C-alpha cells in the first residue's frame, strides 16, 4: 500500500467539498503512487502535502449550499405540529391554557418575589452600610430592639476609626399644620445631615450640605410638597408640626422614597431640632428611640468590630448597666438584609418575611410543574393518534433522535404559544394582584436587563420538561406495531400516568388544606376574645395638639352630650397602638424591691370602663378618690404574677413606681391583649395620666349606631376643636389591619391554590375525556348486556376517585408538617385537627367527581348501536 501522510489526507477530507473530494483525492493518490515509485517516499510525501495545500482553495471548500438540506424537514415538523394542534382543539386548548395560567402565576410570583428582594438595593454605598441594633437583657426578660440609644453612633465613631460615618433616624408622627390646612397622621423622620451620604434619595431642591443642619428646618418629599402646596414653590414657607411651638421652615424638596426602601417618610426634620427641643440630653443609654446606621470601609468584616464591642459597652455603659440591672449587646445588620431578615421590636417600617418568599416561590414552581404534568399526561395518552405518523417516519428513515427532536420541538412550540398567552394574562391580572399585595408591579419589569434570556430559558426548560417523556415514549414505537391496524392504547404507560395524576392531586390537596388552615388561623385571630371590648369603638388620634389638650374636658362633655355616644376616654395608648416600655420599680410579695422594664399605659378615669376591662382584684380608678391621680396603679394579671404574689389580692397596696410616679397598686385587671397576637401578654402597669400625656381619644358608640351617624359626632368634635381634623377610625378595623401580612398571605395562598386546582382539574378533565373515548366500545358492550347507568358511572368514576383518595392519604401528613411549622410563628394558634383534613379531602374528591362527571354521564347516554356497528 502506498499511504500518503494520513494527517494530510484527513485535512483534505475535512475541508474538501464531498462532491469534489472523490476524484481529487483519487488523482492525488495516483500521483503519489507514481512519485513514490519514481522518487521515493520522502519526495512523494512532500509533493502530496504540497498538492493538498494547493488544493485548499475556495472552489474546493465545503459550502453551505452543498450541505444536507434539512430545512424541509424542520419545516415539516412545524407544519405537523400546527396541524396536530389544530386537529384536537380541546387538548391543545387545555394544554396551552393550562401552561399559560401556570406561567402567568409564575410571572406574578416572580415579580412579587423580585420586588421583595430588591429592597434597599439601590443605595450606591449599600454594601458598606449597617444598621446597629440593640439586644437588651433585663431581669426576667429579653428584648431585641431595632432601636439604639441616642448617642451610640457618635460614640462608635469616636472610638473606632472603622466607623466612617453614622446617621440617626427617629420617627415622628402626627399633625402637620399649614396656614389654612391641617393634615393628620403624616409620617416624618428626624435625620442627621449625613442622611444624603447614606441613602440614595436625592434632593430636588435645596443644598445637601446644609439641608438638615439647622434646627427647625424641614424637607418635604416631592408628593407631600404637591399635596400641601399644589404648584406653588414651597421653599421658604413655614409650617407647624404637632406640639412644637416654633415653626419649621421648608428648606428642600426630596424625591419620594422609593417603595423598595425599608423606611418611609413624608418629610424629614433636622436632628438638631430634637436637640434644640431638649429631647436629647446627655448620653441617656437607656432611652431607646433612634435608628442608627453606620458606614464601614469597603470589604469591612463586622465580626472584628463585634469582638471589640464588649469593651466599648463596659467603657461607656458599664456602671449604668450594673445600676439598672440591664445588659446591652449591639449587633450590625447589613442594610440590604433589614427588610427581609429583621424582625425586631419597634422596626422603622413594616418588614417583609423571607419565609413567605420561600412559600410563594415553591407554589410558583409547583404550579408550573402541574401544568407540565398535564402536558406529559395528555401527550402520552394521545400517543395512539400519532402512532401511524411515527411508524411512517421511521420506515422512511427517521432515527429515534430525530423523532425526539421533533416532539421536543412541538412541545416547545406549545410552550411558546402558552408564554405569549401568559404575558397577556399577567398584564390583565396585574392590577388586581397589585391591590392584593399592595405593590406597584409592572409587566415591563419582566423584560429588564437579562430577563428575556431567562424567559427563553424558562420556555425552553418547560418545553423540555413537559416534552421529554412523551418524546421518548412516542419515538420508541416499533414501526411494525405502529402501522398495524390495531390501535396502540399506550397501556404500558398507565401506571406512570396514574402516578402523575396522583402527584398533581397531592399538590392540589396540600394547597387546599393549607388554605383551610391559614384561613382558620386568621379567623380565629380576628375573632379571638382579646379581653377588651373592640366593637363600636371610634378612635381619633390627635398626638400632642395643644387645643385638644387644653379643651379636653370641654370636648368630653360635648361628646357625651351626643346621643350616639356611650363613653369617652382619653389616653396615651390604646390596644391598637401598643405601649411604651418603661423602667419600673416594684415591691415583691415578700417585701423586697426589684427593677424591671414593664409596659405602661397612661389613661383617664373612664378608660377601664370604656374598654370593658374586667377587674379581678381591687378596684378601678375612681374620680371620688382624691389620691388616685397621684398614686394609684393598676396592674394586669401577668404583672401581678411577676411581682411574686400567690393570691392576686395580696398585691393590693404594694409599692410601685413608673414614669416618675410613686404609688401603690389598687387593683388587678384581667389580662387583655394590648399588643398583637404575635406575642404573649406581657406585664402591664396602668396609671392615670394628665391631659398633657394623652394623644388619643376613644369614643364608644351606643350599640346599633351606624356609620352615617359619624357626621353627628364630627359636628360635636368641630364644635370644640378647630385644629385637628376628625379623622376617625374603628378599633376593630385597625386591629385587623395589624394582621395585614397574614391576611395578604392567606389571600395569595388561596388564589394560587385555586389556580393550581384549576390547572389540575383541566388535566383531569382531558384525561377523563380520553379515557371515555377509549372505553366507548367497552361500555357499549356492557350496555347491550344490560349494565345499569349507575354501574357505568361508578365503574368509570371509581378509578379517578381512587387516585384522589390516594392523594388525600399522602397529603394529610405532608400538610400536617407544613401547617405545624407555619403555626409555630403564632403565639395564639389554632391546633391542626382532623376536620380540616376531612374538609380538604371532601373538596378534592368533589372537584375530581365534578370534573369527570361530564364524561361519565356522556358515557351513560351513548348509543351502543353507533359504537359497535363498525365491529
Amino acid at each position, binding site marked *: 500500500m502506498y499511504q500518503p501522510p494520513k494527517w494530510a489526507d484527513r485535512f483534505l477530507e475535512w475541508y474538501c467539498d464531498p462532491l469534489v473530494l*472523490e*476524484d*481529487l*483525492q*483519487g*488523482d492525488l*493518490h*495516483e*500521483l503519489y503512487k507514481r512519485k513514490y515509485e519514481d522518487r521515493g517516499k520522502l519526495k512523494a510525501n512532500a509533493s502530496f502535502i504540497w498538492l493538498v495545500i494547493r488544493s485548499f482553495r475556495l*472552489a474546493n471548500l465545503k459550502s453551505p449550499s452543498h450541505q444536507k438540506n434539512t430545512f424541509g424537514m424542520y419545516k415539516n415538523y412545524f407544519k405537523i405540529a400546527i396541524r396536530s394542534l389544530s386537529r384536537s382543539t380541546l387538548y391543545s386548548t387545555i394544554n396551552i391554557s393550562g401552561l399559560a395560567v401556570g406561567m402567568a402565576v409564575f410571572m406574578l410570583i416572580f415579580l412579587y418575589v423580585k420586588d421583595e428582594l430588591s429592597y434597599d438595593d439601590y443605595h450606591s454605598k449599600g454594601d458598606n452600610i449597617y444598621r446597629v441594633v440593640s439586644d437588651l437583657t433585663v431581669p426576667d426578660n429579653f428584648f431585641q430592639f431595632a432601636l439604639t440609644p441616642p448617642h451610640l453612633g457618635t460614640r462608635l465613631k469616636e472610638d473606632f476609626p472603622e466607623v466612617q460615618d453614622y446617621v440617626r433616624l427617629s420617627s415622628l408622627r402626627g399633625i402637620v399644620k399649614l396656614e389654612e390646612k391641617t393634615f393628620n397622621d403624616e409620617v416624618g423622620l428626624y435625620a442627621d445631615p449625613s442622611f444624603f451620604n447614606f441613602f440614595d434619595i436625592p434632593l430636588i431642591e435645596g443644598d445637601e450640605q446644609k439641608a438638615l443642619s439647622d434646627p427647625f428646618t424641614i424637607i418635604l418629599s416631592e408628593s407631600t410638597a404637591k399635596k400641601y402646596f399644589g404648584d406653588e414653590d414651597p421653599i421658604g414657607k413655614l409650617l407647624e408640626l404637632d406640639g412644637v411651638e416654633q415653626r419649621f421652615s421648608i428648606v428642600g424638596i426630596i424625591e419620594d422614597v422609593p417603595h423598595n426602601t425599608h423606611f418611609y417618610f413624608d418629610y424629614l426634620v433636622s436632628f438638631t431640632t430634637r436637640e434644640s427641643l431638649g429631647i436629647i440630653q446627655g448620653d441617656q443609654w437607656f432611652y431607646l428611640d433612634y435608628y442608627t446606621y453606620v458606614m464601614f470601609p469597603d470589604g469591612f468584616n463586622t465580626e472584628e468590630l463585634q469582638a471589640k464591642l464588649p469593651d466599648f459597652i463596659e467603657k461607656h455603659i458599664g456602671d449604668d448597666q450594673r445600676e439598672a440591672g440591664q445588659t446591652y449587646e449591639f449587633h450590625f445588620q447589613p442594610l440590604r438584609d433589614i427588610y427581609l431578615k429583621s424582625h425586631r421590636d419597634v422596626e422603622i417600617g413594616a418588614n417583609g418575611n423571607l419565609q413567605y418568599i420561600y412559600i410563594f416561590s415553591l407554589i410558583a414552581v409547583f404550579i408550573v410543574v402541574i401544568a407540565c404534568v398535564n402536558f406529559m399526561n395528555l401527550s402520552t395518552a394521545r400517543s395512539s393518534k400519532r402512532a401511524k405518523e411515527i411508524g411512517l417516519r421511521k420506515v422512511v428513515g427517521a432515527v429515534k433522535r430525530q423523532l425526539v427532536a421533533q416532539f421536543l420541538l412541538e412541545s416547545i412550540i406549545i410552550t411558546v404559544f402558552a408564554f405569549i398567552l401568559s404575558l397577556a394574562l399577567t398584564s390583565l391580572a396585574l392590577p388586581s394582584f397589585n391591590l392584593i399585595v399592595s405593590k406597584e408591579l409592572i409587566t415591563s419589569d419582566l423584560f429588564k436587563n437579562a430577563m428575556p434570556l431567562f424567559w427563553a430559558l424558562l420556555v425552553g426548560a418547560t418545553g423540555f420538561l413537559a416534552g421529554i417523556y412523551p418524546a421518548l415514549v412516542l419515538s420508541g414505537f416499533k414501526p411494525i406495531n405502529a402501522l398495524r391496524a390495531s390501535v396502540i392504547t399506550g397501556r404500558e404507560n398507565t401506571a406512570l400516568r396514574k402516578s402523575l395524576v396522583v402527584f398533581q392531586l397531592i399538590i392540589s390537596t396540600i394547597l387546599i388544606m393549607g388554605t383551610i388552615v391559614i384561613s382558620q388561623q386568621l379567623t380565629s385571630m380576628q375573632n379571638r376574645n382579646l379581653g377588651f371590648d373592640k366593637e363600636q369603638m371610634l378612635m381619633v388620634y390627635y398626638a400632642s395638639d395643644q387645643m385638644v389638650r387644653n379643651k379636653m374636658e370641654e370636648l368630653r362633655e360635648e361628646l357625651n352630650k351626643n346621643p350616639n355616644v356611650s363613653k369617652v376616654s382619653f389616653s396615651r395608648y390604646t390596644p391598637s397602638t401598643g405601649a411604651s416600655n418603661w423602667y419600673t420599680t416594684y415591691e415583691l410579695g415578700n417585701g423586697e424591691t426589684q427593677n424591671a422594664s414593664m409596659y405602661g399605659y397612661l389613661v383617664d378615669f373612664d378608660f377601664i370602663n370604656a374598654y370593658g376591662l374586667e377587674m379581678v382584684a381591687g378596684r378601678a380608678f375612681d374620680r371620688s378618690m382624691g389620691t388616685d391621680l397621684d398614686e394609684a396603679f393598676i396592674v394586669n394579671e401577668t404583672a401581678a404574677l411577676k411581682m411574686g404574689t400567690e393570691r392576686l389580692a395580696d398585691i393590693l397596696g404594694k409599692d410601685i413606681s413608673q414614669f416618675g410616679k410613686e404609688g401603690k397598686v389598687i387593683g388587678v385587671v384581667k389580662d387583655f391583649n394590648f399588643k398583637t397576637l404575635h406575642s404573649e401578654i406581657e406585664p402591664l402597669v396602668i396609671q392615670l395620666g394628665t391631659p398633657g400625656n394623652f394623644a388619643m381619644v376613644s369614643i364608644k358608640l351606643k350599640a346599633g349606631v351606624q356609620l352615617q351617624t359619624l357626621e353627628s359626632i364630627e359636628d360635636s368634635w368641630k364644635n370644640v376643636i378647630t385644629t385637628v381634623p376628625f379623622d376617625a377610625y374603628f378599633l376593630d378595623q385597625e386591629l385587623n389591619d395589624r394582621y395585614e401580612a397574614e391576611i395578604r398571605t392567606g389571600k395569595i395562598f388561596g388564589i394560587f391554590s385555586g389556580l393550581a386546582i384549576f390547572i389540575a382539574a383541566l388535566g383531569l378533565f382531558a384525561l377523563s375525556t380520553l379515557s371515555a373515548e377509549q372505553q366507548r366500545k367497552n361500555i357499549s358492550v356492557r350496555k347491550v348486556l344490560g349494565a345499569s347507568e349507575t354501574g357505568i358511572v361508578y365503574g368509570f368514576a371509581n378509578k379517578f376517585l381512587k387516585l384522589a383518595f390516594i392523594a388525600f392519604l399522602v397529603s394529610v401528613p405532608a400538610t400536617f408538617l407544613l401547617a405545624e411549622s407555619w403555626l409555630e410563628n403564632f403565639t395564639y394558634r389554632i391546633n391542626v385537627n382532623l376536620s380540616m383534613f376531612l374538609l380538604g379531602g371532601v373538596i378534592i374528591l368533589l372537584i375530581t367527581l365534578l370534573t369527570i362527571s361530564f364524561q361519565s354521564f356522556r358515557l351513560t347516554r351513548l348509543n351502543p348501536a353507533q359504537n359497535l356497528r363498525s365491529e
Partner: protein
Amino acid sequence: MRGEHIGELEELVLLTVGSLYKEAYAVAILDEILENTSRKMDVTAIHSVLRRLEKKGFVTSEMGGATNERGGRRKRFFSLTQAGRRVIEDTMELRLTLYNKLPKLAFVSV
C-alpha cells in the same frame, strides 16, 4: 463573443480533453500535456482549469467506474461539449485567418 473567449492554458486543456476522448481525467491530461509540450504542470492547476471550462459549458464530466488503484476512488472523466468543440474550431479559424494574412516573409530590421 463574451464567454467564448478562452485563454491559452484553457485552450491547451480543452484540446487535450478532446484528444484523449474517453480517457480524459485530470492525471491523464497532466501526462498528455507533459508529453506533447514538455510543460510540467501542477495537477491542482488542471483541476481548476477543468472546473472553469465546465462552468463555461465547454466540457462536461461524469464519474467513471470504481478503480483498483487510488484506493478504489472513482475518476472524473471529462468530455467536450458541442460548445467546446465550436470554441476550439472558432479559435483555430481565427488563428488560421490571421496566419494567412501574414506576409510570406517578414523581417523587422533592427
